[in-house]
């Protein structure tokens, strides 16, 4: 079957025999975007987290056929070296990653959280950020999440000042 989707602002069409193929493998193997990771394939670790229409989704357990016509953002589309997303900026300032493998999933989950709750409390973070990091970077991640919230706020302020 043919499936059209928008990935990181680019319209893509993929040919796939099995519509139940997890979106993760379409993103990684067909579209060659390797930033979204495979950890468990059972929606249990969060390494594969990306955004579908702005919502954080564990793509290893999301059949590609359901993504038809949807807008998808992966870590590669969240920001880049020249223009990092506040979450990525905060992650760099706090020097969060160790092995780094879980990190894209955490950053995508965090970006989605900040969209809903711009200034999350520790309890909000505990409730919503439930991915697994084996290297144990949670301590720095929490600091980075609070910092990202601050950075986003200052970006918003600049924006509204410019608009005014």
């Amino acid at each position: 079957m043919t499936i059209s989707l928008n990935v990181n602002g680019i319209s893509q069409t993929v040919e796939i025999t099995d519509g139940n193929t997890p979106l993760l493998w379409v993103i990684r193997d067909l579209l060659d975007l390797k930033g979204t990771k495979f950890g468990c394939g059972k929606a249990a670790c969060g390494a594969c987290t990306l955004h579908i229409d702005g919502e954080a989704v564990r793509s290893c357990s999301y059949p590609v056929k359901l993504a038809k016509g949807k807008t998808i953002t992966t870590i590669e589309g969240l920001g880049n070296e020249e223009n990092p997303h506040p979450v990525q900026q905060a992650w760099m300032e706090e020097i969060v990653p160790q092995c780094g493998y879980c990190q894209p999933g955490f950053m995508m989950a965090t970006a989605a959280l900040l969209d809903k709750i711009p200034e999350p409390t520790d309890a909000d973070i505990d409730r919503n950020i439930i991915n697994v990091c084996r290297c144990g970077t949670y301590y720095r991640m929490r600091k980075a999440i609070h910092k990202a919230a601050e950075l986003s706020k200052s970006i918003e302020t600049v924006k509204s000042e410019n608009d005014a």
Partner: protein
Amino acid sequence: MPNNKKKISRRKFLVRGGLGTVGVVAIGSYIFRNPIRRQILGMANSMDMAYMGDTGNPMLWFEITKENSILLHSPKVEMGQGTFTSLAQMAADELEVPMHLIQVVHATTATGNIDGMSTGGSTSVSGLWQPLREMAATLREMLTLEAAKKLALQPKDLVLDKGTITGGNKTLTYAQIAEGVSEWDVPETPTLKSLKDYKYIGKPIPRVDLGAKVFGDPIFGMDATMPNMLYGTVVRPTKIGAIFEGADISQAEKMPGVVKIVQEPDFVGVVATSLTAAENAKNNISVTWKTPNNLNTEDIVAMMTVGNGKSTIIQKEGSALDEEEEEVVSLEFRSPIGAHAQIEPNGVLASVEGTRATIKIATQVIGLTRKEVAERLELDEENVNVIPTYLGGGFGRRLHTPHAIQAAVMSKAVGQPVKYFFTRQEEFQHDMFRPPTHHILKGKLNNEGLLEGLEHHFVSGDVGNNSAMIPSLLPTVLGADIGAIRGGFIQYTKIPNLRSTYWHVTLPFATSWWRSLGLLANTFAMESFIDAMAVKAGKNPVDFRLAQIEDDAAGKRLKAVIQAASDKANYQDDIKEGRAMGFAASVDAGTPCAQVAEISIENGAIKVHKVTCAMDPGVAVNPDQVRAQCEGAIIMGLSAAMHEQMYVEDGTLKPTIYGPYQMALMKHAPKEIDIVLLQGRDTPGAVGEPPLGPIGAAIANAVFRLSGKRLQEMPLKLV
């Protein structure tokens, strides 16, 4: 209970079993009687055998690019521990170049410097400290000599600055100097700069791989690709010890996307055009397994009991305690089977063409991976190029890479590159587990309330035995498993009568290296017992520890971290606002570490609020990354001590997925981690594993202060 001054009777100590029922007879041969064993043990314990690669040829280590950046081919792999950053700092300082000109890459087996020692044991920075700086300094001098030639000046008239050399009115970049040179004048190894002259060493430089890891660059083994790549998978049994007897592949063969079913004497694999096709076909192969057992957790626990297997006395001072004596108290402890659970599954991309093979893989044993593939495919080792990638976590799991052999066999069978990686279920069922342990501690106080005798009797499955990481001779010569005994020594050296006896049992499933090896379990047992003895003696646990450590060099460093952790946390025995503190300390691979855990009990569950950690790793090449390792080790140790546990049911290892295999999540991690770094020696020591030692006991000791319950089993649970 808050009043710790109360004496606890012996009866209370014998919570579970006790010596009466277990009966320890320490008849093992004593390790220190033989001078060779003694020497090897010393080496193994201090991890002095940290590096076994090139120490003489800078050209194997460095490459200068046309753009005047310097590639450092690292013989150690980056698995999160931050080694690449520390190595870059060391190279930049001796090469006289700014950090951004150094680019660290993994050395491949084709490009050179392969470390026979693997990456592990917290040795990467300490092991390369001398050779890397020497090679960098040598290269700097070679460039200076060559520049002198090119500029027709004396080396002493040249000025080195930021990757350039200036003399007279001319400035040459390192790249310009190196261009076209085929013969170099190589100086004697230059004198290294002194610590205070370093610009980068000792500074909290941001990780060199930060950008790649924040923007999702394809740097991991799982991300490797090659043109015409196919997907492979191997059928694996779910039962412990199952032996492959044959497979019916008639269904699978016909399935869409299947390229070939590869049948070998020891495994059957599927190669297909997509991962999904390979998995589907695999599920349609029916394999006959011979399953020798239907074990359950109780069977494993019974095997893993002090008194079983072969024993070795690893520490002996004075005489043994007399069990019959009224004042001798004892406690037992247990730790469960632990999984590595690194988030990137084991995987490999293999391409075999004729007499050559290329292997892209996340491995901690580059040389061994190459050797094993070469042997199975009957290729020359020089024709097998292993290209290491970044590791999505190592923790000891990637010291074993038989999957590289299987992928290479499949690639050869289809004549195309084959990528193969484990499912999460396979990861959990075919892990090389942290072995379960059982410990019996015995102690006796003297009239002053200090220990007159202390004994640690413990049993563990294999860690270092049969392992790739250490020369196979070592365990045999030693009689003890150098992994299992990590942390198994009694550090209270003033106690006149000491025994530490290790019992060795090989389990029916594979056990091996897991970050910090025996340290986590051994320290949990010993430091919980020390706490119990301090309580019995009516003493503050910090003073109780300090009073029983010798004032030799190692003892002073241990005392210093104990004091520093206690001061920084403002350690107190009393419960304040529902929170209690617990104290523990350990020495691992020469690095002492002490921790204070601050906990409360919420809805019947232990909640860790804060951990204070004092550690003396010697020179911290990158203090920020040393702190990161402490934070990570504390959280990983907390996870293992409080949440994690594999069990065995009807011959099957379970659970097989995150979630049921409980691990610490964001909500479990302490919100405060306070780290104090001391520098008790002028070289770098071990960092990645030592801070995993104290955490389990620190938490358990805090639980005792809060609830009066002495938890004797990991994972620590109140009910």
